[in-house]
């Protein structure tokens, strides 16, 4: 074979590879089937199931698979704690043992880029399988058709056991996502530093402010602060926004009411803004750059005496510095006296509508949510991963886990705080801003992605305007609520038929 022929052969091979990789996946078939449809009437607790004949698109499953091949289902999550990853892998192996033709492939995404991955996968036709869905993007994902209804999975595992907000429904009444773990912020406090200063754990905002001031100390007398009273982020992302929501709720504020009308412009929210900013004078100088883990690192290094965070802080501290952990406790965050409510949010699992293996993906989800598997997962970071059912919370509190046995009171505090938890994204209007009553009803905020998904988030930017730019709290707050109102108005104008689910 001469040089020219060899080159031509190589060229043909290259072109064949390109052509193969550009070829579309096996086309979905359109067929008519009898399917069970779950009908949920808003306001009615009863779920009705009826059989209807409808045209459905059946994605290729076995047809796309070579004889004897393995079906690979991606599992997209942002849970990257080594213990969590290990338990995921164990559960995947157990599933494959029972289903030898299926392999679950763990894909770990960054905290903020899960949404982007889903959008990108949907655009190019990639398979994502089982996916973690950020609550703020949930309604947009449902609207765009990225998620598969999971009514049959919920029916199989039992819908009644789940706490409010743990099952996410679309406007059509179908369940599209199931919560696997929640997160809540409570205040971690160095008890040894409190004792040294002759103080008790704070129970009111004024006490918290005084404690933060007292614990901000120059310990070696060189003129520089060595320990700051409180680690309170004023960074650009949700790490700041989520914590600020605690201040809003506890001061009888909210973002929108149950009908979707703006209430962030009520004066009690301004009080919350002022309190947050007031506390930051006892926070480290770099809090304007803090994201999720910066406060955790500062606490672990002994540079802050108090920090609002989830249960992970205690677990990490136990590993890094057991002595400091023994001198650390956790309490409800005392930043307002009007409403007993805290920010708490679930993480959800769903099935990507474009998956090659919808039945297998749903089957795996059912497997994950039954037996002891979910509890095993929650125990990888005890107290941080709040179970979506009360029964499982009890199971964890009574488990043989060493950390839970040692710090059961702290885990109980965190689980207890979650009982007063809500997120404005899923429970729009959780706080009645007239009566200060906390009444979280499942009521997703459809425009939440534009308010809480951006960087900086609106509330983070509001706080940065005050702390960084020196704007008055009034001016920054007015900018924030004007921006929120504009976003909501634009969304409602584009969706004139929308009605809040809580109606």
């Amino acid at each position, binding site marked *: 074979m001469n040089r020219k022929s060899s080159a031509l052969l190589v*060229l043909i091979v290259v072109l064949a590879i390109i052509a193969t990789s550009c070829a579309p996946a096996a086309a979905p078939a359109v067929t008519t089937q009898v399917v069970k449809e779950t009908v949920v009437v808003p306001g009615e607790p009863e779920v009705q199931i009826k059989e209807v004949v409808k045209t459905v698109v059946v994605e290729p499953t076995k047809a796309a698979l070579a004889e004897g091949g393995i079906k690979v289902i991606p599992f997209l999550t942002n849970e990257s704690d080594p213990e969590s990853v290990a338990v995921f892998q164990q559960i995947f192996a157990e599933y494959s043992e029972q289903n030898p033709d299926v392999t679950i492939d763990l894909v770990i995404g960054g905290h903020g880029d899960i949404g982007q991955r889903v*959008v990108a996968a949907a655009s190019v036709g990639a398979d994502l399988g089982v996916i973690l869905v950020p609550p703020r993007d949930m309604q*947009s994902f449902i609207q765009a058709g990225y998620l598969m209804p999971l009514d049959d999975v919920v029916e199989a595992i039992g819908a009644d056991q789940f706490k409010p907000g743990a099952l996410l429904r679309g406007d059509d009444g179908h369940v599209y996502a199931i919560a696997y773990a929640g997160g809540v912020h409570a205040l971690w406090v160095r008890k040894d530093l409190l004792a040294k200063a002759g103080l008790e754990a704070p129970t009111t905002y004024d006490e918290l402010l005084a404690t933060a001031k007292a614990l901000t100390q120059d310990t070696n007398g060189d003129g*520089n602060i060595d320990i700051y009273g409180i680690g309170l982020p004023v960074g650009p992302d949700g790490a700041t926004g989520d914590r600020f929501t605690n201040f809003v709720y506890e001061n009888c504020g909210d973002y929108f009411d149950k009908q979707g009308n703006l209430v962030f412009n009520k004066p009690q929210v301004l009080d919350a803004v002022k309190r947050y900013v007031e506390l930051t004078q006892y926070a480290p100088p770099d809090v304007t*750059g803090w994201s999720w883990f910066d406060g955790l*690192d500062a606490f672990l*290094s002994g540079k802050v005496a108090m920090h609002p965070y989830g249960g992970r802080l205690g677990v990490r501290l136990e590993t890094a510095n057991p002595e400091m952990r023994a001198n650390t406790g956790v309490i409800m965050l005392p930043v307002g006296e009007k409403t007993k409510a805290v920010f708490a949010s679930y993480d959800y699992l769903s099935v990507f509508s474009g998956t090659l293996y919808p039945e297998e993906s749903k089957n795996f989800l059912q497997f994950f949510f039954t037996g002891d598997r979910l509890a095993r997962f929650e125990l990888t970071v005890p107290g941080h991963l709040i179970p979506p059912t009360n029964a499982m919370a009890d199971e964890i509190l009574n488990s043989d886990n060493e950390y839970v046995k040692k710090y059961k009171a702290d885990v109980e505090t965190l689980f207890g705080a979650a009982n007063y938890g809500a997120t404005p994204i899923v429970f729009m209007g959780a706080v009645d801003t007239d009566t200060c009553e906390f009444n979280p009803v499942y009521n997703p905020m459809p425009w939440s992605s534009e308010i809480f998904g*951006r960087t*900086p988030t609106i509330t983070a930017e509001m706080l940065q305007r005050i702390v*960084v730019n020196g704007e008055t709290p009034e001016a920054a707050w007015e900018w924030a609520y004007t921006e929120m109102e504009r976003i909501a108005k634009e969304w409602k104008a584009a969706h004139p038929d929308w009605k809040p689910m809580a109606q």
Partner: protein
Amino acid sequence: MFARSLGMRRGNLLFAYLMLAPAIIMLIALNIYPFLTAFYSSFFNIHTITRETTWVGLENFRSLLQSALFWQSFGRSLLWMVPGVSIQLVLGIAISLLLHQELRGRWFARGIVLFPYLVPAIVATLVWRFMFNPLTGVINYLLVDVLDLIDKPIAWLADPDTALLGVLIVGIWKYLPFMVILFLARLQTTPLELYDAAKIDGASSWQEFWYVTLPWLQPTILVALLLRTLWMFNEFDITYLMAYGGPMYATTTLPVLIRTTAFGLNQMGQAAAISMLMVLVLFAISFVYIRYYYRAEEQLSN
């Protein structure tokens, strides 16, 4: 005879095109198609997640040109790019000249100098974020406690006055080796007789550098400047991962603004419009560089 020769030439031409085909296909798929898609998208209002699309004509461009944030981000892109590329250029020449000398251990030094370029951006940014930390970072420790240059630790990435500087330091550290490699490779091809002639004419070391080394380096400098300018202007990972565009947009350059617009505000059309305006700027810069490059090559060959 003539017909046979023509047939062979046609065959060769066809073969040449066939050989070019994979590259052309890749170019179309990976460059031209995405560019045209972005150009087309810039005339629409596109919701990133739901893909709801509405024709808006030039509205995206009009609103951008009236947006203070866009112009501020553009200014920060220049503030990030111009000093960044200039300092990399000067240090790149200096270090490459040093590594070109007959010094002991220069092979080891040449290896070490490449290190920052080999470190993934995410690792580099994490390490630098720790180093810049005002509570526990080594940089403030050195400045305050060891060298006694400042009284209080600086919140490098949390202060709008220093955030971009902090990011710039990391950018220079990370990409300086690229310049060093290019210049070192060029220096190794310098004809030695040029230096011999300069010595015979009584040239000083400075004159040797100015009249021999620098002109010899000039085409490489222009290529390095062109590439680094394009890459710095388009740089996203370091600027975003170091400070997430903040505080108060202090590190929001145009690529970070594109990300925020596309995935934060869900306005894909608007984000495409920003990228189109970036293309215009980069095209103008490239045009100037390429003109100078050909002029430098011509001068050198003369």
